[in-house]
């Protein structure tokens, strides 16, 4: 015992920057020798709960693990379910899904940027990030009627059509965000202190990133141009033009810059989608014909979907389906096994944060105590999403 050089530092779960988890850090002076994440503090048995719920009830359930990124989670689940049911959403609904997914990506990246700011000590970036995410929350509210958990995407379509004047409002919002991004660059991204804290810190090499199965912006910051939206396009992505943000450095700064670039790309996607969006129904023909004529009229005038009665007891045929989408934090996989009843036999969701949790042990090593929050923030790790 007398030879012990290191001290065990327990960071969290009651710590200003630990999030809902605990980090076991073994420190030798100011150097972190080893760090182990202890996850599971916000495990909510989403997968097991899903087996007891009807298919339509799972939509609000899968949104909960990741509030900032609810639409992508919703979308991934519905895509898997649609595969099981053998239906497809009409083109207009596909575009609306894409728009909401990209709005959520912007929202989530601002959220991550704000959290990272306060971890580095910049309260301004924290406030800015959380204020500017509000723009996308507000726009989502106009589109879906809810601020955070929209439950907007349903099997065979979406629940609401574009509201009047949405395009102009969105253009205003996007122009505002563009202006704000310049401010972020001046105050945070090119700030000498930020650069000193992030450049060359927590470097993830390309080979390691691939070997560890890292996903999302963390992977792309290490020079791997892997994006599900390009690799296996879904919704309206094949018809839209956008670049995959890639950087070669692999350090914390690169991870932040990739996210900022993704915000720009998402804005590009939203602009294109709003311009190209085709006319037509927002619910699949299969379901549309089940709706009584009076309600159909209501749907067409109000632009809101009335659920056909069959949705309450969706019974997909026996089989299994897998879907993957590019959520804000990375590749999100849903796997459903159906035994022909109203609830899934087995439900599996693999969230991007869960796949990135391995980075804690890999990146936060041989660095300083002050680097723990710097690297943690750059990973944009979200404990509830990982714990599910």
């Amino acid at each position, binding site marked *: 015992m007398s030879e012990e050089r290191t*001290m065990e*530092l*327990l960071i969290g779960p009651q*710590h*200003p*920057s630990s999030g809902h988890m605990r980090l076991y850090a073994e420190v030798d002076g*100011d150097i972190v020798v080893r760090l182990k994440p202890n996850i599971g503090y916000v495990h909510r048995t989403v997968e097991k709960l899903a087996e007891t719920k009807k298919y339509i009830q799972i939509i609000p359930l899968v949104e909960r693990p990741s509030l900032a990124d609810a639409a992508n989670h919703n979308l991934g689940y519905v895509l898997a379910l649609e595969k099981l049911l053998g239906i497809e959403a009409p083109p207009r609904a596909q575009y609306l899904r894409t728009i909401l997914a990209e709005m959520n990506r912007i929202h989530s990246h601002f959220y991550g940027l704000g959290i990272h*700011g*306060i*971890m*580095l*000590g*910049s*309260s*301004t*970036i924290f*406030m*800015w990030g959380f*204020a500017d995410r509000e723009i996308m929350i507000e726009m989502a509210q106009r589109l879906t009627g809810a601020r955070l958990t929209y439950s907007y995407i349903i099997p065979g379509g979406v629940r609401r059509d574009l509201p009047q004047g949405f395009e102009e409002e969105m253009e205003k919002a996007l122009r505002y965000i563009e202006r704000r991004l310049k401010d972020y660059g001046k*105050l*945070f991204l090119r*700030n000498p*202190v*930020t650069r*000193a*804290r992030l450049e060359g810190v927590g470097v993830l090499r390309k080979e390691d990133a691939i070997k560890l199965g890292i996903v999302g912006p963390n992977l792309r910051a290490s020079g791997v141009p892997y994006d599900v939206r390009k690799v296996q396009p879904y919704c309206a992505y094949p018809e839209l033009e956008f670049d995959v943000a890639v950087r070669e450095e692999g350090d914390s700064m690169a991870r932040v810059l990739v996210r900022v670039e993704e915000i720009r790309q998402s804005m590009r996607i939203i602009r294109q989608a709003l311009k190209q969006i085709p006319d037509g129904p927002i619910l699949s023909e299969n379901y549309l014909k089940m709706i009584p004529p009076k309600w159909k009229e209501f749907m067409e005038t109000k632009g809101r979907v009335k659920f056909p009665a069959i949705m309450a007891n969706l019974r997909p045929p026996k089989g299994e389906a897998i879907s993957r989408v590019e959520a804000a934090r990375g590749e999100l996989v849903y796997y459903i096994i159906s035994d022909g009843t109203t609830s899934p036999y087995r439900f599996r969701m693999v969230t991007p944060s869960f796949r990135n949790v391995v980075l804690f042990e890999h990146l936060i090593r041989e660095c*300083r*105590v*002050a*680097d*723990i*929050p710097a690297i943690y923030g750059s990973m944009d790790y979200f404990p509830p999403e990982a714990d599910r």
Partner: protein
Amino acid sequence: MMNLMSLFRWILDLLFSPWLFVPLIFPGLVTVFLVILFIIWFERKLAAKVQLRYGPLYVLKQLGGAIQLVADLLRYLFAEPIIPAETDKLAFVLGPILLFGASCFPTVAIPVSSSFYAIRSDISLLVALGLLAFGPAITLIIGWASNNKFSLIGGLREGYITMAYEIPLFISALSMAALYGTMDLIEMVESQVGWKWGLLLNPLAAITFLILALMSTSRFPFEIVEAESEIVMGPFTEYSGILYGLTMGASYVKFYVLCLLFSIMFLGGWKPVPSFLSWDPIGPALVLLLKSLILMVLGVFMRAVYPRYRIDQALKIGWHMILPLSIGSVFLSLGLILLGVVP
């Protein structure tokens, strides 16, 4: 009636006698509290302006929440100061009190005007800086007494960073002493006639002194000792109630004292006194206070701009950048003397 008048007169005389006025009113205790009240409110207001929000607002809404800190202080006073079982109780309780006291001490060495001072000493600059150097030692004790790993790390950070700023701080102050040929703060002000402010004569010393003042009082970007996202509150993690309030106030007091010293050394101290305010000591005191407050506002504004450095980066800045610069400022002073810019 006459008796009452004479009693009033006597009290006024007592209050305005330098040995009571300086430690008690200006720059001492009363002003210290007013400055803390103002600067913390203004810091929050200023940061809020940058951060697209209101800041303190609801306590005295007419003045924009100006007395928010009075409300906070009352809350601190009535909150239970929890003393954890495993702490060194004596050191734990006395620590914040001594820390706050140690930050206030140096005000006695600071003159209010050429004819108004508590103590006149040839080395009043050294006395002020020397008294300021007590603080870090007490912070170290607090960090150890708290019996908390975060406190321990915070205390050690304070120890390391003290080494990095204290030496260059003394050197840049002494370079000004060399320039003016005195360590007496009054004579320093007297030497700055006309445009010849220390800031213009030796900007190198001024810049280093200001950066070191930020470093020594945990202002951003050197908010390393209390780095909240890393070590919770550093040495003060275990504190609550009024004891925590004292530890928080102490760094502001220290910054205030350093700004007073900066104003005296580099900004001409209490000069120029406007003619309508020539009543000694009120006029000079107000001028000196105003200069220091402007500096403090500049210092606390950094919070809205910078994240924090890592400890090793701050130490590198202290030893590799500021120390050579402060030594350079000594040579600059000597050069100015050789060139005959200063008598």
